[in-house]
Each structure stands twice: as structure tokens, then as C-alpha cells.
């Protein structure tokens, strides 16, 4: 067997393991990955949607607020997958699993490949499910078949980017709780400071520039344009460029953090043992 087939085989094994994990935690994942975005969708559409929809004015081009909202909710759904991914990676690092496979002839990158692969899978399944619920709740996209392909492509690229970033966060945080907490800016703060719920121009001057130019806005805007049949312009390319940059950064960060340094070592260091 060549090194490449072994690498593929090891990655497939880790993928299998992570899929098993996801199945064991299915109920938990359904709540966090699907139910939470659906509740957000309901809250923002039914409770806040009236005022927000009015406030949109021309931006909505006559469509109901739900059509403006859903692309943002889809991005939140993807971002909601960051927590579980960071937690799973962190659990492997702090439990003995990483040590175990480091004493075996297992391809070095396979473990993270498995985590990232299944993370993307979970994010895509959740996004599809939330899209389904949105359709039931009155979301009426005007996308062509080609637009839909572009939507899937951008969602997948964004999932891939956030999955690598979450993996890196899971690697560098010293505890499982820390891993979860550290993804909150990704899954909560950044969506709110973007065009997810309201346009960036409507925000206070201090955050307006940030909100208008950060990656979540680029991704949300491109999805919104594709799904509402508005002119897409360069927004799709901008979104993909952001995804590529985040994925690369997350990948490099993960590689740097995955140097052979054991959880045992980390635990002792973090306690500030003599010698550190």
C-alpha cells in the first residue's frame, strides 16, 4: 500500500469514527444544530419581523422579511456547527485518544481530516434541514437551478472554512469547556455584527464599517442575492475568497497546534507546575 492509500484509509477511518460519534449524540446535535436556528428564525420572523421588515424599506425589494432573514439564518446554522467541532477535537486532545494514535503508525493528519470532514457534513445536513423548515414557514426563494448550485457551493465552502477554524480552536484551548466558549464569537457575535438580520448600513457608525466588511456579511449577502434573485455581482467571489482565506488560516493554525505535544503535557503546563 502506498502512503497515499494509507492516508486515505486512515482519514476514512476517522471519518467513520466521527460519524458514529454524531449518531450517538444525534439528539443533542438536532437540538443545537437545527432547533436553535429554527427558533431564531421564528423569533426574528414572527416577533421582530414586523418592525424589522418595515425598516428594511427598499433593501427588501417588496419581499417579506422572511426572505431577507433566511439566508442569514442559514449562515448562523453553519456557524452553529463550530461549537461541537471544537468540543470534539478538544475531547480527543484532553482524553487519551491522541496519545493512543500517536503511538501507532497512523497518518498524522487523519484525525483532523475526519473531524473537519464530518463537521462539514453535519453543517450541510443542518443547513438543508433548516432550509426545509424555512420553506414550510413561508420562505419563497427565487433562485434558478444554477443559483441553487452556487448556494450549495458557498455554504459548503463556508462550512469547510469554519470547520478548520473550529478544529484549531479545539486544539489550542486547554479544556472542553474552553473550546466551547471560544467558538461563541464565531457562532453568535459575528453573525449579529453582520448583515445577517439587518443591513450593515443601519448599524451605529462604530460597528458599521466592521459589519459591512467582515466575512459573514460577504457570505450572507451573496446567499441573499442568489436566493432572492437580486443581482449577485462580485459578492459570490468575495464570499469564496473569504472562505478560502479562513480555511487556509484555520488549516495552518491547526497544523501548528497539532505538533506532538500531549494532553498530559498540556494539563501539567496549564496547572503551572514547577519547571514551566
Amino acid at each position, binding site marked *: *500500500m502506498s502512503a497515499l492509500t*494509507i492516508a486515505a*484509509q*486512515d482519514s476514512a*477511518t476517522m471519518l*467513520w*469514527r466521527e460519524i*458514529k*460519534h454524531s449518531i*450517538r*449524540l444525534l439528539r443533542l446535535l438536532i437540538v443545537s444544530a437545527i432547533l436553535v436556528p429554527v427558533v431564531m428564525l421564528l423569533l426574528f420572523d414572527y416577533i421582530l419581523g414586523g418592525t424589522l421588515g418595515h425598516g428594511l424599506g427598499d433593501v427588501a425589494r417588496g419581499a417579506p422579511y422572511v426572505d431577507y432573514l433566511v439566508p442569514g439564518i442559514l449562515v448562523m446554522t453553519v456557524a452553529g456547527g463550530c461549537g461541537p467541532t471544537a468540543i470534539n477535537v478538544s475531547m480527543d486532545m484532553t*482524553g*487519551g*485518544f491522541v*496519545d*493512543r*494514535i*500517536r*503511538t*501507532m*503508525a*497512523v497518518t498524522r493528519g487523519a484525525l483532523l481530516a475526519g473531524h473537519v470532514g464530518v463537521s462539514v457534513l453535519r453543517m450541510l445536513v443542518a443547513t438543508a434541514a433548516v432550509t426545509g423548515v424555512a420553506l414550510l414557514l413561508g420562505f419563497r426563494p427565487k433562485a434558478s437551478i444554477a443559483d441553487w448550485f452556487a448556494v450549495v457551493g458557498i455554504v459548503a465552502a463556508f462550512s469547510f472554512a469554519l470547520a478548520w477554524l473550529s478544529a484549531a480552536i479545539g486544539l489550542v484551548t486547554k479544556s472542553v469547556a474552553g473550546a466551547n466558549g471560544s467558538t461563541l464569537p464565531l457562532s453568535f457575535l459575528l453573525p449579529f455584527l453582520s448583515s445577517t438580520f439587518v443591513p450593515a448600513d443601519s448599524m451605529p457608525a462604530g460597528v458599521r464599517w466592521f459589519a459591512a466588511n467582515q466575512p459573514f456579511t460577504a457570505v450572507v449577502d451573496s446567499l441573499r442575492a442568489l436566493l432572492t434573485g437580486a443581482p449577485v455581482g462580485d459578492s459570490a467571489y468575495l464570499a469564496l475568497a473569504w472562505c478560502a482565506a479562513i480555511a487556509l488560516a484555520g488549516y495552518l493554525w491547526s497544523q501548528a497546534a497539532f505538533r*506532538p505535544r*500531549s494532553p*498530559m*503535557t498540556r494539563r*501539567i503546563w496549564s496547572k503551572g*507546575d*514547577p*519547571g*514551566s
Partner: protein
Amino acid sequence: MNAVTNQATRTAVSVTGLRKAYGEKVVLDGVDLTIGEGEVFALLGPNGAGKTTIVRILSTLIPADAGKATVMGFNLRGEAGAVRRVIGVTGQFSAVDDLLTGEENLVLMGRLLHLRATERRARATELLERFDLVEAARQTPATYSGGMKRRLDLAMTLMGWPRLIFLDEPTTGLDPRSRQTMWQVIRELVREGVTIVLTTQYLEEADHLADRIAVLDHGRIVAEGTPEELKRRIPGAHIRLRFADSASLAEAARLMPEGTRDDEELVLRVPNERGIRSLRDVLARLGDDVAVEDLSIHTPDLDDVFFAVTGSASKEKSQ
């Protein structure tokens, strides 16, 4: 277990001048070891002695700062891949996957070892039977007892037929029965010709299992030899007699001048070199007149070993 005497045996592990420090703290301070193939070698030492550090270095998890080491003929530096293919490691802390069933844990190892599907299923079934885990095979380790978890951990290590196994404190935290089971399992492995390097804090365990013992203290090997050799250096065995009052103690001390007397605790310690015969002798000499409150037989423990080889008790030293 005759590997020690068989000079023709090949070397499984050879270590010279192994050093490791974390910052200012020296953890291994020049360790030399030679372990023969098929041998059971015990690293005995108190908390913080450096046992786990040695295991982690020899199993390619962390690099040493200095020193030379070969494992099954492969150099740790540069041939780590080859080392990994012939060793199995059961770490001090459980490394089972809590979200997979027992059987899936074994299959996972089989996959990572690149066994064929039929081979890994057969091996998993065999190990589940051997480790008495058949009934628990389809449950996740969350429902296992400590002993079952430990057995699953070891079974996972054995999936790939390793020729050298590192067991870091395999019985710490187990009840006496689970410990017996674990000892049995280890002895079976020995019969199959597997070389075993285990660490333990219990002299009794090293005594039961090991062909040779190295006593580790503060990153140095302070004694090495067969269990018999070590025990001969430990004058720790004694019979401990406790009395109700100092008059009885004084009387007993007069009858047995070889004893050491402790007036505060009203205790007399009589050396016990000949087991039951010493005991019978002591009882005979005490007769019916001296009232003994309590009698216990003290066998040498790790503290005695440390006292003998370093001149200080392990508990004091490690704190």
C-alpha cells in the same frame, strides 16, 4: 519466565543516559536500562518518579533531551515509525473511546492498524472473549466498571499483535479481584512471548509479575534486579505486636531482645525472616502470660524498598 537466565535472548529495549527536563525541573537524570525479549520488566517508583515519562519517551510520544534508546532494534530517533509498528501502549489514563461500543473500539483499532475486515472482526471477537467482555461488547464504556474499562484498553492495545507492550500502572485503582484478573491476563501474554514493560507503585505487583525490577526515584534508577535480589536487600519483614500497657511491653521486650520497641505506641516489632516458623516461635516465647492486644504480619512494601536503597521512605521523598 526464564528470559533473564537465557543470555542468548535478544534485547527488546536498550537505554543509555536518558535525560529529560521540563524547564528547571529534571525529570529523568540519566537512566540506563536493558530489557530482554520475552521479559517482564517492572519500573517501580512513587508518584512523580518519572515512570510515565520513561514510557512516553520509549513509546515515541515525547523526545528525550539526551541519551540513546532502541526499541526492538529500532532507534527512537529516526525510526519512530518502525517502533510504532511493533509496540502497543496502554497509558496510565484510560484511552478508550466513550462514544463507541466496546466492539467498535476494537474495530477502530483494527482499522487504524490496517487489518483486513475479516481479520479485524476475528481478532476483535477473540479479544472480547478473552477479556470477558462479550456481554458488554455492544455497550459503550460509560456503562463499564473500572476493571472492564482497563481490560478494554488493554484489548485495544493487543489488536495488532504487538511484540512489546508498555503498561503504565495497569492496576492502579482496581479492586483486588480486578487486579488478579489483570495479572492473569499479563501472565498469559508473557506465555505468548510478548515483552512487557510495566510501571507500578506496588512492590507486590512487581514481585508477582516481573522477571526484573528497576526502582526509580527522582529520575534515577536506585536499584535493579530480580524480585528476590531486591527483597534480600530489604529487611522490612516483621511481626508487629501491640500491648495494652507498658508492663506487658516491657515483659515481651525482655523475652524477645531482638525486637524493636516503641514505647509511645506500645508496639514491639520482631524481625520475621522465616515466615510461619518465626511466628510460631514468637507466640511460643510470649507464652500465656503476656497479654497481646493486636498482632499483625508486616511484609516489605515500597516504603521499605526505598528505605533500604535510598535511606528514606518514599512518601516523604516524593512530597
